[in-house]
């Protein structure tokens, strides 16, 4: 509990923030006779001189400047300035937290409460275009690092009091704010309770990204498949919230988590609903095919050339056979070698700064591929196989799902090397077996291709084929049954 003595309060706080040279304390004397001592604690940069002059803090201090002590206490406790971002704090922990989250905290001698005043906060990147969810049509706004800014971007799109934003502090040391955003009446109570339970059970020191929450709260830790959908787009988040889903924001993360989720969600993009249904349906079929290719194509090539050459035309099989004559590796090693070389390029492309990154991918791919073929290390067809597989993996709209398929591709290659097509089908059987028991907040992951009748088949209208918007009259299974009518 804070005491009435400023000196005592300062002493305690100073002890707590010892060694934190970035936290400043500016002392001042208030009142007509300048007898009332006060001080303001803040993290450097979050509250600078100019801000103090011009901000709410500045205005408050100016007012207190000429008041008598009793008037000052009354003024503060009544919040006479009428500003919303002023909170009274009575615990040291709250004071420290207030400073840490980037606000200014004012302590006044003779007053046993501190006043937390919103300031400009920590430096952050502004709103910029999403890098990983680019769309041809639709808003160009993307989430930023600041949680408040992100929730505001959703609020900007859903101007209703039914949109609820529940905040929670997670991380014993980082004290990161996590916001649960949903539409009251649409999001299922059971899902909200489960989210709350899982977040409450989290006992960790640091929460620096939404990815950590994702991994700590997902149901199947060893699954390669993502169990949360992510988005960087406010319009997407708003749309999902309207569909009964819940959005989870983590401070300092521009990536929001959408939950619950299913396999089909990962193939949907924000502009799927902005374009006409023919185009979208076609695009979705391409995406699903891309997922199959991304995982299976190298394995199918391997199975065809080592076990089942009968499925290929004679002319092609003879071309492949003659191209492989000088290759020093078996087809399995050849495939593996080229796939790993591509992974190497991809990883290098991501790490190399600036425009060089993408350049190295293209140039490296072309040069290394061409050189490898010329040197006779690999056959030309394998370059086509690897390139097509890579292209397919980029056509999957969700990076997490794409990564899952990238990893599983090696499993399929191994199975094909040992068992041919039978191996590939067995690999798929393992994967489908796994997917069939995977769940996201209790919802089957394979919905709506499986268990679609839970929602009378309505979710199938937004699956492989996207029905015309006018036909989609029901919200997804995530929404409460009684309020499911009317999607758009």
């Amino acid at each position: 509990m804070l005491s009435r003595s400023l000196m005592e309060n300062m002493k305690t706080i100073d002890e707590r923030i010892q060694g934190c040279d970035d936290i400043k304390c500016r002392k001042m004397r208030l009142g007509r006779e300048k007898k009332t001592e006060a001080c303001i604690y803040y993290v450097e940069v979050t509250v600078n001189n100019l801000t103090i002059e011009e901000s709410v803090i500045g205005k408050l201090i100016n007012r207190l400047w000429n008041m008598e002590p009793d008037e000052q206490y009354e003024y503060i406790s009544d919040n006479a300035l009428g500003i919303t971002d002023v909170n009274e704090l009575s615990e040291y922990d709250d004071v420290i937290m207030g400073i840490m989250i980037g606000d200014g905290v004012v302590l006044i001698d003779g007053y046993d409460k501190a006043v937390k005043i919103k300031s400009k906060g920590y430096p952050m990147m502004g709103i910029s275009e999403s890098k990983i969810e680019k769309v041809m049509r639709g808003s160009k706004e993307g989430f930023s690092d600041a949680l408040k800014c992100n929730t505001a971007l959703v609020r900007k799109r859903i101007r209703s009091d039914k949109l609820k934003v529940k905040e929670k502090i997670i991380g014993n040391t980082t004290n990161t704010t996590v916001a649960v955003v949903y539409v009251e009446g649409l999001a299922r109570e059971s899902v909200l309770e489960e989210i709350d339970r899982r977040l409450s059970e989290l006992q960790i020191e640091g929460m620096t990204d939404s990815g950590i929450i994702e991994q700590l709260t997902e149901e199947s830790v060893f699954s390669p498949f993502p169990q949360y959908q992510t988005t960087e787009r406010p319009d997407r988040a708003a749309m999902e919230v309207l569909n009964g889903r819940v959005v989870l924001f983590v401070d300092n993360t521009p990536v929001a988590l959408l939950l619950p989720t299913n396999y089909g969600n990962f193939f949907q993009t924000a502009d799927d609903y902005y374009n006409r249904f023919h185009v979208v349906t076609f695009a979705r079929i391409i995406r699903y095919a891309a997922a199959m290719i991304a995982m299976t194509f190298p394995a199918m090539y391997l199975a065809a050339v080592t076990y089942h050459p009968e499925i290929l035309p004679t002319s092609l099989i003879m071309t492949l056979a003659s191209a492989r004559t000088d290759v020093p590796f078996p087809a399995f090693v050849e495939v593996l070698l080229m796939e790993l070389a591509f992974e190497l390029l991809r990883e290098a492309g991501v790490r190399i700064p600036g425009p060089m990154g993408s350049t190295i991918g293209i140039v490296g791919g072309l040069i290394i591929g061409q050189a490898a073929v010329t040197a006779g290390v690999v056959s030309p067809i394998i370059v086509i196989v690897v390139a097509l597989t890579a292209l397919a993996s980029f056509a999957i709209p969700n990076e997490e799902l794409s990564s899952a398929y990238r990893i599983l591709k090696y499993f399929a290659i191994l199975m094909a090397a040992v068992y041919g097509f039978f191996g590939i089908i067995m690999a798929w059987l393992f994967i489908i077996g796994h997917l069939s028991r995977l769940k996201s907040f209790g919802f089957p992951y394979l919905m709506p291709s499986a268990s679609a009748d839970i929602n009378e088949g309505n979710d199938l209208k937004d699956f492989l084929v996207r029905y015309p918007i006018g036909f989609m009259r029901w919200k997804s299974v995530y929404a409460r049954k009684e309020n499911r009518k009317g999607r758009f």
Partner: protein
Amino acid sequence: MFSDNEKISGRQMYRTIMVTLGGPTLLICPLVAGRFGADGFFVYLVAGVLSVVYTMLMMWCKNRGIFQCGNKRCTAVMAGLRILLCIKLLFLAIGGLYLICDVVTGILLPETHLFMVLIVLAAALIYWNTGSIESSARAFELIFYWVVVPIVVVIAVAIPKVIPGNLIPSLFLKEGSMAGKGMDVAGIVKAGILLWLLFTPSELLAFCKEHYRNDTKTTKGVWRGLFMLLAGNVITYGTILGIYGEEGMNRGGTYPLLKVMQISGIPGDFLRRVDGFMSVFLVLSLFCGMVMMMDYLGISLWQIGDILFGKRGRKNKTVYSVVITGIMVIAVVLIGMKVKSGTADAFLEDAYSDKSIISGTELEDRGFVMSVIIGSETVTFEIASDDEGAWQEESEYVTLNDNRVLEAEKLYKENGDKKLDFTHIKVIFIDEDIYGNDVTTENLKYMYEKEKFAENVMVCPLSGDIKKMAADAIENGKAFAVVMENILVNSEKSQDMELYRVYLERLRYQNQ
């Protein structure tokens, strides 16, 4: 929170029936009904009627909870019936595993050791059976298209090859004709009962009532599944029979459906021969069938456990899966293949043979045989040239001193540096001097039954100008098969020259 309720919906019911019973019935039923030729349709009729009556009976039992083990109602008789059900399910599961092994080692991986196949199947079975019955049903919903679409495509592509005359039952033929020898009614009824055993999933409705949603959709799902399955089977049987005729059914070799897959190439050069590719989807169905049997076997065993020991028994699905899978694997190894080999010893000998753990062969190690020229004393293999782009002009010819293809292959294997690959063979030439001989019948039988030879490869008598051209090609190392294939394909009688037609015609002739 949303969660599993261990209940199967109507849609899941329908798809489960299609996926789990589609593969096994399509493989086995033509074998059983095929013995009766066109009268085989009556076998399906008997099986269909019995299935409908049985399903109605089971639904009646289900609605009255007759087989439910409510605490007091459960009697020793009910427990006994459940034990019988368990035995049946176990046998069906073992049968399913046997079928998969047979298809995989027969068609897909003829040179891979059986134990390698069993290892991966056992691992997958154990994994699948640790899940819930509802998760299996979800997976079947997804797999539905993977099974149904390829089979529909195969049948659709094969239907133009059907000869309608093959489909007329003996009932409608004049007495005295070959097919009109009278109906074997008793045999048909027996075969119908045998088939009916494969169409009896409806009993699970009555025994495992608590695992189905009690609504009209589930009932509809059962009926829909049963009728679609029966219709699909009849259409498939009609297609196979229409193509191969009575003589072709059960005439050795592999399952009739797989034979059809050999000749049902997709138009265009890609996927010209789809048996290897399509049979994996059949394997998918067989696997799902096994999983379903094991799922319900597990449920039935728990129920028996509950009857005997109350609800105290621990239900460890992993232990159950491992034990049951182990029993199935051992059963397939020791008993299942006895059917094929005659004795268990013979099978074990086969299982421990020199087959490989990994049997894939690199393209450059394969010698692609373009034609087989069977002379009166020799067999010559025309092997495509390895040189880039030269295969249409140059060939290597290997002549072996035996006029039986099988023996010639063995001779080549002893000395050849490559593995002979017959998957792209274009034409089989048979010298006119031996065309009517038993040796030719033996050769045709061998090639017809061996999966590596496509059923629709051309068979051409070697005489006159063709003989001279062949001799010239062999002498100068010129490509012969490619040239001849182009000529033969464009001829009016090209269809009559396909391997399976030539062989079946010969059988028909011999029977007369």
